[in-house]
């Protein structure tokens, strides 16, 4: 099975669990307020036509995140 390190590595249609959001990410607090905290299950549900940003399902809402952000969101290894 592929091990997913960061949220950006999650394939479209894949699910994962958040481990930690990197400290130096400027929207860290905002992401946590949107429900992206440790232990949250996230699914990648699609990408935009140009490949970035991608759409993620976070606690019932669809949020678009850029790869700059998602490469700093560590996921639990399966």
């Amino acid at each position: 099975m592929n091990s997913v390190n960061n949220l950006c590595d999650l394939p479209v249609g894949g699910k994962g669990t958040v481990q930690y959001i990197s400290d130096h990410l400027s929207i860290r607090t905002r992401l946590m307020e949107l429900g992206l905290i440790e232990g949250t299950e996230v699914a990648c549900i699609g990408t935009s036509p140009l490949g970035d940003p991608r759409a993620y399902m976070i606690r019932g809402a669809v949020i678009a995140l850029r790869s700059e952000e998602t490469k700093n969101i560590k996921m639990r290894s399966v």
Partner: protein
Amino acid sequence: MGLTNKSTGANASKGQNNISDTNVRVAFAGNPNVGKSTLFNLLTGMSQHTGNWPGKTVSLATGIYRDKSHTYNLTDLPGTYSLLAQSPEEEIARSYLLRQNPDCVVVVCDATCLERNLSLVLQITEITQSVVVCVNLIDEAKKKNIRINTKKLSQLLGLPVVATVATSKKTLSTLPRFIDSATQSSYADCARPQYPTPIKEAAKLISSCLYNMYPNIQNKQWLSLRLLDDVLTSELEYLAPDISLDNPRLSQCISDAKAYLAQQGFTPEHIHDIITAAPVHTAENIYRSCVSGNCGYSIKDKAIDSIVTSRIWGFPSMLVLLGFILWLTVTAANYPSQLLSQFMTYTEGVLLKFMELIGSPPLVTSALIMGVYRTLGWIVSVMLPPMAIFFPLFTLLEDMGYLPRIAYNLDLPFKKCRACGKQALTMCMGLGCNAAGVVGCRIVDSPRERMLAVMTNSFMPCNGKFPILISVSTMFLAIGAGVLGQIGCALILTMVLVICIAATFCATWILSHTILNGMPSSYALEMPPYRKPRVWNILVRSVLDRTIFVLGRAAAVAAPAGLVIWLMANISVGGSSLLNIFAEFLDPFASLLGLDGVILMAFILGTPANEIVIPIMLMAYMSGSVLSDTGAIDGVRQLLIDNGWTIKTAVCMLSFAIFHWPCATTLLTVKKETASLKLTAVAAILPTLFGIILCFIINILT
């Protein structure tokens, strides 16, 4: 953007001036995009603009609701995801809740996305416990098989819960009663975010210190947590006016509390994460016990998105949709424009008779009626119908939830230009009216990116330029009238659209690498589920909000413009009207651009509103003294040819029409939004430079 005391203090809600003791002050809070403003409108009967994508309302709206026993002063707070972040909306919302102390807060939640909404409820209960929870869009939830046990929810929250349908006033009938009971006795035992014991102890240390030092201070619990977490420090003294962070006793107390936690193994980052995550965890627990079913993003939503954001169909579908809206605007506006024009001519006649009656001197009559009034009439009859069609259509897209998808699709190119994907939306608004588009730039959070959006907005062709584009291309470029002509027109408009979009990216890139240098900010864009738009609401709100706002400003600018134009056409020096002299003066430079002096002059004098550019041009060619109608197209075409027009002239004029300085209304709006003369000058010069260069190149190459 100027978040001043005035904008968030007592003056923010205008309805507060005549408060009697029996008025109950209610604030409406909630996540963006939950139908909060719609509910607000239903209760207050006032038209307040809303949109189906996050971040729309950034100024407070107030209204009054009356029932048999009470009068309620309602305030609609901006939609916020949390009360702790740094965006303007969040600042206004928390400032209002902390400083204005409303009697009751109604938190509106989206039934299709309840978990995250509950998080906000819990943040609010930390500040005030007179809260009523409104679970809105319950009909949408039912459609998606989401079942909410409102009784249990109410039990677990310790707060009254009302289930409402956004469009049904009936479901709101119990709300006033709950507001009353919340006002009379706040729900002190209601649910609040749960923190681990050490954090609670540390917060208690700080709050008892606060109590000793400032016995009258309110919101001690909330303040202690913020002081412990070290957030909002620059705002705290404003939010709680009595405290002083410089006070050594207070700082000592805070250090002690943090030291206590450090002993227990809590680092500051750890503390921050726990405090931030607390409402999320608590909300999750409550949610799991009361809600069952799927989430709000249904199969239908997924299907639509798989088309509009797909690699193959995403951009074409966007272009087709926008092109269609433009075409519809232009076509459907024709007939009402003619009617309005006839009406204005009729009233002009009436006014002329009136002036005669009161014995007004002919010069004054001419200046006032043929100059000022006619210009005003022209602008209104040409400007109003397209806008009255475009903005409702645009708002329809907003209400349905499509607009965030545009920002989503175009985010990457904007990021490459160091701007924000939301700029795509301000550009769309600018298609209706550049001034409205500039105001709409408030949805961009980062100030630098907002400036970028503001200054490049006039690269998009607004409704006022369409008459120029259409009539010139019909006369010189398209295949004549009829269906083929319509299609030709639509194609040309689409091509213009593409050119303008490309130019906007170019200009944004230039600006963000020069005077507005900086790195793109990060943001999370929410894409809400698609919803059925509320059509009647839209029409009314759109007409009142945007159209009248724009018209008002345009009229204010048009009147003096009309006078100036009349003066120039009717004052002669040395046998030649000022108009002619000016045109001749501009001629040499204009021919470099493939234009002539008259055209350039028409653009200059048409600065108040692009709608009068062609009338001024025609008036000058005919050496007339008043603006006249375009009349029969063939006659006009001949007139232009007689004055030296060729296809090259037409192409250059089109190019200059889409790339020249913004109209006066837009310039004023830019000045207001940027609060900088320098940036306003850049906003004027940049498109003009594009236009000059483009026209020059076309002139040289042909």
